[in-house]
């Protein structure tokens, strides 16, 4: 304590800063940085948890890129992205845009859209899975039957399964995006709209010339946020296809599920690590690309 009192004010600050940071710095090194490095190293090794870890160079990557299942999974992952992101963005924008202009029961309607965001993906995957069942169990098919339409194979068809799983994921995230869009809309100064009204500009022109350009930061955030979400999809797929995860015939399997399978069912730790490195690269490239495309101009 005597030593401490001899320190100058700025030296005391340094002491306090590291006292505050000591435990967290250890945490980040041990729980984030070391595992990241470990994943990279492991991706050049072969290991099934029992044998020794042996270096195999790029073999895991070679094997991955020549595996037809990987390319199927790669394609699926991008399907989730290129369908999910635009659909959820356009829907949530339309909802937010109109909800912004509604006063009567505003809070209640907002809550209705937001509620799904508060649910657990696993629980809702099971609810949607039930909806998709054939007659007499499934709600959707019962509804179609009562209207006199034929039955639809939702989860058992290689073409319908992926969009069916995706619908549940889009539904769950919509409320969050609506709320963020609404906050963005409210941040646009009212005076711009008043000026436009005085000039007699059409609603459409106001939308495309004022609202959307001024929403750019919000749009950038939501595009990056939601594409990362769709590229990492797992909970919904796993729980809607538990009898055959990622099925039928790998038609719904995303990259994260492939990683899970390789590591924790196949115990090919090195091969799985190589897959995680590929996921990391995709996420990095996609978000940097989007930031680039959307931010400047």
């Amino acid at each position: 304590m005597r030593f401490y009192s001899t320190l100058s004010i700025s030296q005391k600050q340094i002491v306090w800063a590291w006292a505050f940071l000591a435990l967290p710095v250890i945490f980040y090194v041990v729980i984030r940085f070391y595992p990241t490095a470990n994943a990279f190293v492991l991706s050049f090794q072969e290991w099934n948890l029992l044998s020794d870890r042996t270096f195999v160079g790029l073999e895991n990557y070679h094997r991955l890129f020549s595996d037809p299942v990987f390319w199927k999974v790669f394609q699926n992952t991008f399907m989730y992205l290129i369908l999910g992101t635009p659909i959820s963005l356009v829907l949530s924008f339309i909802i937010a845009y109109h909800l912004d202009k509604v006063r009567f029961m505003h809070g209640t309607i907002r809550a209705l859209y937001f509620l799904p965001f508060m649910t657990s993906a696993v629980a809702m995957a099971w609810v949607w899975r039930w909806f998709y069942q054939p007659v007499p169990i499934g709600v959707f098919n019962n509804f179609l039957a009562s209207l006199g339409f034929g039955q639809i194979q939702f989860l058992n068809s290689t073409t319908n399964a992926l969009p069916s799983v995706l619908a549940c994921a889009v539904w769950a995230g919509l409320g969050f995006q609506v709320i963020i869009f609404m906050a963005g809309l409210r941040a646009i100064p009212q005076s711009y709209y008043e000026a436009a009204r005085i000039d007699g500009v059409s609603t459409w022109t106001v939308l495309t010339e004022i609202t959307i350009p001024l929403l750019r930061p919000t749009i950038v955030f939501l595009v990056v946020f939601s594409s990362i979400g769709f590229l990492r999809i797992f909970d919904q797929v796993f729980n809607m296809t538990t009898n055959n995860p990622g099925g039928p015939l790998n038609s719904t399997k995303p990259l994260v599920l492939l990683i899970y399978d390789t590591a924790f069912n196949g115990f090919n730790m090195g091969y799985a690590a190589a897959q995680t490195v590929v996921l990391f690269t995709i996420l990095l490239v996609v978000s940097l690309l989007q930031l680039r495309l959307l931010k400047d101009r």
Partner: protein
Amino acid sequence: MANQDLAIKASTDTLFSGSSRQPRRNAGQLVRWLLLFGGGVLMVMPIVFMISTSLKFPFEVYNLNLIPEEPTLENYTYVLEDGRFYRWFVNSLVISVVTTASAVFFDALVGYALCKFRFPGRYLVFIAILSTLMIPTEMLVIPWYLMSKSFGWLDTYWGIMFPGVMTAFGTFLMKQFFETVPDDFLEAARIDGLNEFQIWWQVAMPLVRPALAALAIFVFLGNWTAFIWPLIVTNSADMYTLPVGLSSFGDEVDVAWELIMTGAAISTLPTLLVFLIFQRFIIRGVVMAGLKG
């Protein structure tokens, strides 16, 4: 930054006070309202169906009316008396509460240190922590699993919790919010003889309470619904969290949809109820956390 903060504050404020927008009242406005309301009702239908089915006897499940003819709590007593859901609920609660308390405490501590202290290495620490946001959890689960295995953390509470005791996102969020605390306040406290820890805890923390609440909501919800890591790190049914338990339970009973819906309701109703009570507050938190991130 300051300008952006003001804009965010203005947007969150107008989102909750009745705004100055005055819609024209006409037929178009009515159609808009009806479509929006209808869309909102469709959005909550899965939740309504879940609750309604959890209150039905098995013979009524295939009847799609939303209000059960003979509502019953039998499914709930069946599922809870089985004991597993009760256990999973307690596991989830303990894990979510402890990680939330820990993450909020440490994120605020680090955010404050990075914002208010001048010391060599400050920028480096900030960039290092921020850079971990780019690493997807999926990349870390394999090393985490190996680590847990060698330390004997598999199938323990600590094993489920350790990756989440601090979050980079929260640190960033808190650092942003501590910028709004004037240095004069801290200086005054220093003159009054408080030490730096007391200044942080007694002076700065109360001033960023809304941000702490927003962060707490995010961390709690994230841990309550987390699936992939608890799935990997647990292997006995006693250690499952609610989502992992529900996932295994669904496979087991497969055709007993009223029981699956009861399980789903048990894992969802607590957060829904909390939302309905603290609605405004939670939406405000989401806006703050979302726009800051």
